């Protein structure tokens, strides 16, 4: 690997950690002009930076506002690199459906989970907030999604997660998808109780777990 490329990848990662959108765009442009592989720029540059930001969040160095600004820088860089991607170069991506369950419009946690899922290589369909149970099922069916992510920040709407899981069972889809739950009031205990596959207290850990669970499930089926 050339020195220049290595340095640019490091700078891309740093621009994300430093929450510097303009820098991310400039470096991404430089990266393309030098004819480096845009996929590498995303996965070995920007995504590394976002992962580092996620870890800083786990360590309580960064909080939500910082994490959101990091993700802005990541997306700004991605917007430059993405149009140059050749499709056959990208891995086959697992599809995921995420949303905030009905009754709640707080979607910070869901947005962070979506960002981190994209960073780990998922193709994410975002149903938004206040999503009726049926919509999760229909969209997952339509896309052949391997992962459903349910989020809520309110204790009063946690029950709607269980309703989605029961609907999946009724539809005979429960064994085909990994169900992850998350949000302020959710705990491992709650996840176990309602029969979800996974929970993590924080978005970047949740995304890593999601990937492991989906891979595990795919291997088991094959």
């Amino acid at each position, binding site marked *: 690997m050339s020195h220049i490329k290595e340095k640019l990848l490091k700078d891309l990662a740093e621009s994300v950690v430093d929450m510097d959108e303009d820098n991310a765009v400039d470096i991404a442009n430089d990266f393309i002009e030098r004819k480096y592989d845009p996929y590498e720029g995303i996965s070995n540059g920007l995504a590394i930076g976002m992962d580092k930001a996620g870890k800083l969040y786990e360590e309580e160095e*960064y909080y939500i506002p910082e994490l959101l600004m990091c993700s802005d820088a990541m997306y700004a860089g991605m917007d430059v690199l993405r149009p140059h991607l050749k499709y056959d170069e990208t891995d086959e991506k697992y599809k995921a459906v995420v949303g905030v369950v009905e009754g709640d419009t707080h*979607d910070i946690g869901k947005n962070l989970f979506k960002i981190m899922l994209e960073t780990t290589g998922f193709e994410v369909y975002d149903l938004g907030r206040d999503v009726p149970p049926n919509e999760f099922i229909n969209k997952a069916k339509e896309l052949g999604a391997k992962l459903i992510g349910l989020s809520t920040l309110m204790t*009063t709407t946690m*029950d709607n997660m269980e309703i989605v899981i029961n609907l999946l069972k009724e539809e005979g889809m429960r064994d085909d998808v990994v169900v992850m739950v998350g949000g302020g009031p959710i705990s491992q205990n709650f996840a176990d109780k309602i029969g979800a596959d996974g929970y993590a207290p924080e978005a970047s850990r949740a995304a890593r777990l999601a990937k492991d669970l989906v891979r595990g499930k795919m291997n088991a089926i094959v």
Partner: protein
Amino acid sequence: MTIKSLSKKERLFRAIKREKIDRPPCICPGGMMNMIIEDIMDITKVEWPEAHRDAEMMAKLTMGVCENGGFENFGVPFCMTVEAESMGATVGLGTKINEPRVIEYPINSVTEWKNLKELNLNKGRTKVVLDAIKILKSKNSDVPIIANLVGPVSTASSLMEPVDYYKELRKKPKEAHEFMEFVTKNLICFAKAEIEAGADILAISDPSGTGEILGPKLFAEFAAPYLNKIVSAIKNYTPGGTIIHICGKLKSVYGILNSLDSDVISFDSIANVKEVANNVNNKAIMGNVSTLALEKSSPDIIKNLSRGCIKSGVNILSPACGIGPRTKLENIQSMVEVAKESASENIILKLS
């Protein structure tokens, strides 16, 4: 020394001031800390969403909780959208079991705060809440009336997309402060009206403005000072005192919690009662029975959790957050029973 049995109101007033009491009160303020459940709707024949926009129904529903062996207070409203709606947000009132929520934001950036409406006390659901408090007051009962207020950060982030709001706290701090001043001024206006209408206590919940979300620096800059502005503006008019509820982990902001001017601090089940009691020394402690346990477990488990809270030193026994509307009345009653059976030795000892 023993104390004669107190009325519900006297007991809560004293607990808030950390004075001697016969036993801890068991309350749930309302507002974000929802106390309304389906069982009570069925008993009173008053239901959501209708009760959110009708003062008589609102009063009847909260009275139903206390009258049926539930929490030892009245509290209105039952959601956290009244303030934002009055300032221009579009609200969907939800269903019998889903709370109202903001469905459309009036502004896109903190810089646009001048386009917001001033909170109007004379129409809409702000008026419904004030009328409901007047009805509760007119009952002249010994049950304390708690008025609820959505905190400044949570109100602000109900008026624009929260993702943009959080980023702009860092990107546009000057305009963000102007926006927060505007929001706080209007919240004070509503809080004062709630007290004037007859509320005994003001409870402020700011679930979007926590240390866990903002971090200690932004919490100290954008949450604490505006919470304190509200408390100091109404302090002298509020007979029973003020409660602030903070969600999430508190560890990063223990130091700042001492600088909040409320009489009571209420907190989530994720925070440990003993740890809070050790770190916050100038307030009554309220909490923190898991709302998940309340909804999903049995009276026996809830009784144990409630005893644990009292043993660990809460002055006021309460759920850790809003309770789910599908929670069984029996489970709430079991919390109240624990408060009734317990002699408040720890509190008396602490003061003697």
